[in-house]
C-alpha cells in the first residue's frame, strides 16, 4: 500500500472543506480516514469517494498534519480493483484499464480507441455524441493511433510492473 501515516489525523476536516466533490459524495475524505482508523473492511471500498475523488491534491496541500490523502485513495482504488468491487458509476476502473492498454500498445494514448472501448463497456453510446463530429473536424480527436513512441520501452515497463505484482501475491 502506501507509507502514509494516517494515525496523526485529528479530524479537523480541513480536507472536507477544500474537497471539490465533498458535497456530492456520501463519504468525505475525513470520514474515509476515520473509518480506516476504526479498521474498516471491504465495505469501505464501495464508498463513492474512492472513484469520485478527482485527485486534485487540495486535501493534501491543506492538511495541517501533512497526510497524503490522495495516495490513500489511490491505494483504496488498487484494493477495490484487486478485490473485484462492483464497478462504480462511470466505471473508472474500466476507463483506466483501456487508457493504459492504449499506452502499453502504442506507447502513447489513443483517445479514439479508448473512448470506443469505454463506451462499449458502459453502454453509453449516445453520451457526447453531439460533440464528436466537431471534435473530429477540429482534429481534437485523432483518427489514427499515435506514432513515434518507444513502444518497446512502454511494453517493458508494463511487463515489469505486472511481474512485480504477481511476485507480491
Amino acid at each position: 500500500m502506501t507509507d502514509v501515516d494516517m494515525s496523526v489525523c485529528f479530524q479537523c476536516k480541513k480536507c472536507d472543506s477544500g474537497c471539490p466533490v465533498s458535497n456530492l459524495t456520501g463519504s468525505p475524505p475525513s470520514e474515509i480516514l476515520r473509518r480506516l482508523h476504526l479498521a474498516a473492511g471491504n465495505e469501505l471500498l464501495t464508498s463513492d469517494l474512492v472513484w469520485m475523488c478527482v485527485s486534485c491534491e487540495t486535501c493534501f496541500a491543506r492538511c495541517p498534519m501533512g497526510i497524503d490523502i490522495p495516495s490513500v485513495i489511490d491505494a483504496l482504488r488498487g484494493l477495490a480493483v484487486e478485490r473485484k468491487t462492483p464497478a462504480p458509476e462511470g466505471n473508472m476502473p474500466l476507463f483506466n484499464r483501456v487508457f493504459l492498454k492504449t499506452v502499453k500498445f502504442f506507447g502513447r494514448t489513443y483517445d479514439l480507441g479508448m473512448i470506443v472501448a469505454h463506451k462499449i463497456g458502459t453502454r453509453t453510446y449516445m453520451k457526447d455524441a453531439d460533440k464528436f463530429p466537431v471534435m473530429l473536424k477540429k482534429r481534437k480527436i485523432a483518427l489514427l493511433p499515435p506514432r513515434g513512441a518507444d513502444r518497446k520501452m512502454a511494453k517493458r515497463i508494463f511487463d515489469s510492473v505486472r511481474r512485480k505484482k504477481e511476485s507480491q501475491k
Partner: protein
Amino acid sequence: MKYAYYPGCASDSTAREQHASCVAVARSLGIDLAEIAGWICCGTTPAHQTDRVLAASLPAANLVRAQKMGLDIVVTCAACYSMLKMANYEVLHHPQVREHVSEALGQDYDGSVRVRHFVEVLLEDVEIDRIRKALKHSLNGLKVACYYGCLLVRPPEVNQFDDPENPTSLDRLVTAMGGESLDWPHKVECCGGALSLTRTDVVVKLSDAVLTMARAAGADCVAVACPMCQINLDLRQSDIKKETGRDHNLPIIYITQLLGLCLGIAADELGLEKLMVSPESVVKRLTRVEELV
C-alpha cells in the same frame, strides 16, 4: 536557451493548439525546443490510480532520455508536468521505488533532471522585460481570469510551482501583455479533470462553478495552461447551458495563444480556430502597441 521538449499525448489530440502555440511562441522568443525522440505517455491519472511504480516509471523513461540530451525538460501540459515532477520526487525520496523503476527501465535513474513548465521558462529564463519588449500587440485592458487548476501547483512540495493558493505566474504574463488580470477566488479550484469522460455530471458542476465565478469577477476570457482545464471549461459550456440555462460564453484560451497573438503570430499558427467558444472577442481587443503610446 535550449530544452528537451516533452509535448505529451494531448499535443496530438485535444490540445493540439497548446502545442502549436507553445512551439510558435518559443520560436518567436528564440527558445530552442528539441523534441525528445521516442517519448512515451506519462500515464497521468490512470497510472497513479493503478500502480505507484507504473506512475513513476512511465515519466522516468522520458526523464532518462532528457538526461542523455543533457538538457532540462520542458512541458506544456500540467498533468505531464505533475507526473514528471512526481517521478523525480519518488525516485529521490523512496529508494525502493527507485529500485523498481530501474528494474522496469533496465537502467538506473537518479531523479536529477530538472522539470520545467513552459510558463516557468518564460518567467525565469526569458524574463518579463524581454517578453514585453518583443510584444507587437497589447491586450488593451482585456479582463482575464487566470486559471491554474490543480496540477501546476499541487502538491506544493513536489511541484514547487509558484504559490499554491494564490499563484501569479499567468497573471504576470497577462499584465505584461497589457491585460487586466483579475483577482478572483477560483484560481486553483478543480474543473473535474480526470472525470471528463466517466462522470461528466461532476465535471459540469465543477466547471460551472469556476465559470460562474469568472463571470462574476467580470472576465472577458479565461487563460489556462493545462489541456484538461481547457477542454473541460470550453467543451462543457454547452452542457452547462443545457443543464442550468447559464450561457457563460467565455473563451477559454491557452496563455501561449494569448502571448502568441501579442507577439504578432498569425491566428491559424496558434490554433485559435480549434477552441470551442470562439475567441473572436479577444482577437478584436488586440491593439498595436504603438497605437497605445
